[in-house]
């Protein structure tokens, strides 16, 4: 479902080139759950951003199902994110001026794929039923991340990308949130690629990859 070949990315820092990714190869099947770990600055988040089309690669290919992501325009990449990718961030990135209900439905609505039945199921499974009228600032970190996961899965994406989704949560809450995510990923059958620092959490997924020196070790 996801096939990455020879992906490279270089940043410039204080005038010096920093080679973050030096030919990454990665394959992910539909329904597969993969953890990606690595040292700080190893390029984990960058890899996720390139897959999501949030940034452009310098070389290599990213094939998501039948779409070559690196060849898409900005609008094409936006469409890809809207329709086929769910994104979850460490900082939750909810829209502060929208209620929980609106945040949950937001991506599905702009994708034109709002499914009320699926939405109700998500709310129930994520335990957000009593929080729908609240605003993000009125929620705890764990609650906010559950909303972010619900928003990402509301479109039933092909691929769920999570960038340290539990980084701001305590251990128990992190376990709960990840357990919920695993269940929902299994329910939708989408691929799941999660960046994490936690070896404990990485171990709970199907496969564990380590990014080192710009390559998958």
């Amino acid at each position, binding site marked *: 479902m996801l096939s990455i070949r020879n992906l490279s990315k270089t940043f410039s820092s204080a005038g010096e080139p920093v080679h973050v990714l030096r030919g990454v190869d990665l394959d992910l099947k539909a329904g597969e759950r993969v953890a990606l770990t690595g040292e700080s600055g190893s390029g984990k988040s960058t890899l996720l*951003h390139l897959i*999501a089309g*949030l*940034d452009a690669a310098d070389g290599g290919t990213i094939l998501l199902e039948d779409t070559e992501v690196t060849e898409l325009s*900005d*609008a094409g990449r*936006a*469409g*890809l*994110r*809207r*329709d086929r*990718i769910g*994104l979850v*961030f460490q900082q939750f*990135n*909810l*829209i*502060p*001026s*929208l209620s929980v209900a*609106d945040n949950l439905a*937001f*991506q599905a*609505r*702009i*994708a*034109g794929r709002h499914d009320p039945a699926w939405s109700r199921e998500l709310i129930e499974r994520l335990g957000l039923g009593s929080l729908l009228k609240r*605003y993000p*600032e009125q929620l705890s*970190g764990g609650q906010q991340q559950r909303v972010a996961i619900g*928003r990402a899965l509301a479109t039933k994406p092909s691929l769920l990308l999570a960038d340290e989704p539990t980084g701001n949560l305590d251990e128990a809450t992190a376990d709960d949130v990840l357990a919920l995510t695993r269940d929902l990923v299994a329910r939708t059958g989408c691929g799941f690629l999660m960046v994490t620092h936690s070896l404990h959490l990485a171990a709970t997924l199907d496969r564990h990859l380590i990014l080192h020196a710009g390559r998958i070790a």
Partner: protein
Amino acid sequence: MRRALWVLAVLLSHWRRHKMQFATLLIGLIAATALWSGVQAINQQARNAYDRAAATFGGVRTAMLVAPDTATFPQELFVRLRRAGWPVSPVLEGRIQVNGHSVRLLGIEPITLPADVGNAPRLGASDLSGFVAPPGQTLVAQETLADLQEQEGAAPPISSGAKLPPLHVLPQLVPDVLVVDIGVAQRLLNKPDQVSRLLIGKPKGKPAPLASIVGDRLQRVEPNAETELERLTDSFHLNLTAFGLLSFFVGLFIVNSAVGLAFEQRLPMLRTLRACGASARLVNTVLVIELVVLALIAGLIGLACGYFIAAALLPDVAASLRGLYGAQIPGQLALRPEWWLAGIGISIAGAIVAAATSLIKAIRMPVLATAQPRAWQQRQRRWLILQSLAACAVFAVALLLLHYGVSLIAGFGVLAALMLGAALILPALLEILLLVGQRTARKPLAQWFWADSRQQLSGLSLALMALLLALAVNVGVSTMVETFSRTFIGWLDGRLAADVYVSASDNAQGVAIRNWLKERSDVQAILSGGRAEAQVEGQPVELLGLPDHALYRERWPLLETAPRAWTQLVPGNAAFISEQLSRRLNVRVGDVIEVPAPGGTWELDIVGIYADYGNPKGQLAVNVAALIRHFPQTPQTRIGLIVAKENIPGLIAALHKQFALDDRSVADQATVKAESIRIFNRTFAVTSALNAFTLGVAGIALLTSLLTLANSRLPQLAPLWAIGITRPRLAAIELTKTLSVALFTSLLAVPLGLLVAWCLIAIVNVKAFGWRLPFHVFPLQLAELVAVALFASLLAALLPVARLARMQPTNLVKVFADER
């Protein structure tokens, strides 16, 4: 489409959670649109009135034939021209008094009147017979009917005793004009078979050359695109426009501040929208649509407010224009569709300009850009340098305009460049002041005070610029008005030499009054004056006859004189010239002016220049006896009397009783002076109102900036609270900081305002009105304005500071809990 609507709904949700910010944005746009549109409405109303006046049965909008050096010519020339195929129509014009009210009388010949006389009112076929058949009609505007205190259908007498034909209202007619058949006008004005001008219609063929029919007795005058009134009043309207524009820009400062903060706060939202799959183009398009929709709503509200502002100011503006230029403006506001469209357009354009930097930033924002609130402030230093360089360039432009500019527009250009430059350089000056404060501070809290003030400066600078501009304009205009006021009152003391003024209804009554006064022991001197009209170098000039009396020699306000000027005046071959006419004709003491008079050209040596404030016409002061010799038709109806103060009431009462004169015909010096000062004050009432509006809008700009900044201030204030500084003390420090920068700004506004005043007095007034006033500084007034500005700043700072003082500790704790 649905996707765009969802994005729009998300963007709009921000305003639901930030109501104050939303109100700020709307207030800014509404204030900007309202003040600009209000001023434009007034200008449009006035210009329509000039247009009507110009086009009234063939004003300067129509080509015409006039006599080169006499006011009227024989009607026989009209007959000759018609016979030769010229499509001409006669008009006779003069002034008459009706119920003590002086009005312009126009006699027309409706059958031959050209059809294409601008937007002049038209007489339909059904009205025509009523107009020409006895008893005829006197066409009158509704406003004039009210001024004359008459009813439609009445036939009031004029001062000579003759009766006007019945009054008939013609709605489109310009105020202060009565229109009658030319035969009636010739009788009423006692000018049988005389015509003032011939209006020229569209010829059917090619008529014989003019000279072959009337020789050089008539000359053709082509229609003017701009009337004399428009030319005279241009400066007044330019002045109003400048005020409107200033208020508009101050309003845009508010919009810029509100939109800037909203964009900063919405950067994470925009990033999330993009991450969720809304394309950059979609988000940017919706951002622009949102702005346009808000501008549209605010524009409509602003237009409604502008209408009310214009309606409220119009009576004062009309009084100013009547007092300064003799222009008649109807008191009821009538607006064209263009005004509404232009108002909406300016609101949308203003909103886009004010939001341009934020929009460009949003458009250029990479999707992965980290949302750093107020990151734009970090680039402050580079901006300060760029802004200061721009300010220097603008000051250079001001200097160039000052040196090379000759027009009124150049004068306003100097003013605009001066103020823009000052506004641009203000943040740099404040930065230097605050840096000096920081370097000299010793205690840690004091150091933080100065350092934090510097950090806050970038967020406040736009509001402070608005305050600087508004205050400088207030200082400048107030200084100019106060200078004018004092000069004017001093000048009035000199000009109003007599103790009692009498205006007879005609020459016969004038003779009777003079004979009666000679018999009275309480009258120390009778000073008979007179006025005549002439054309000098194509300009209308008033000739003022002065009696030869010691009182005039002592008090008449001369600016420049030749030796023994008053003695030279007596034989009748010398004149004083008004300051504005001397500038217009470029005439100095020692020059000679030729005045066309009925008996031939009258050569006058200029032996003095005098101030003649408030008179739109150029004036020459000559000996009254000489004036009557050269202009025998001069009405001898004006009489000044020297009377002991205690005898004035008795004499006035006796005049009332003896000659049935009313208050308009007899007045003592104090009454005339009080009336002149009342007119003067009313003239500047508009200026004062616009001054107050501008300062008010600047106060709102400061309030909105402080309110929008208050939220982002918590991370700076929370650590101080954590180390033991109480919330009330923090609030007091915040208040002191705001007042300090406001005080610095106000103090900088004072010299800038004085420069503005100098520009107004030495450049704009001279170009616009033709007179130059002595420059005075009024320290008490300056102190008062600085106090008002500080009070406005205090009011603006109180709300956010009060919020801080009452803030719950949990809100401050959140700063450290990373839950904000």
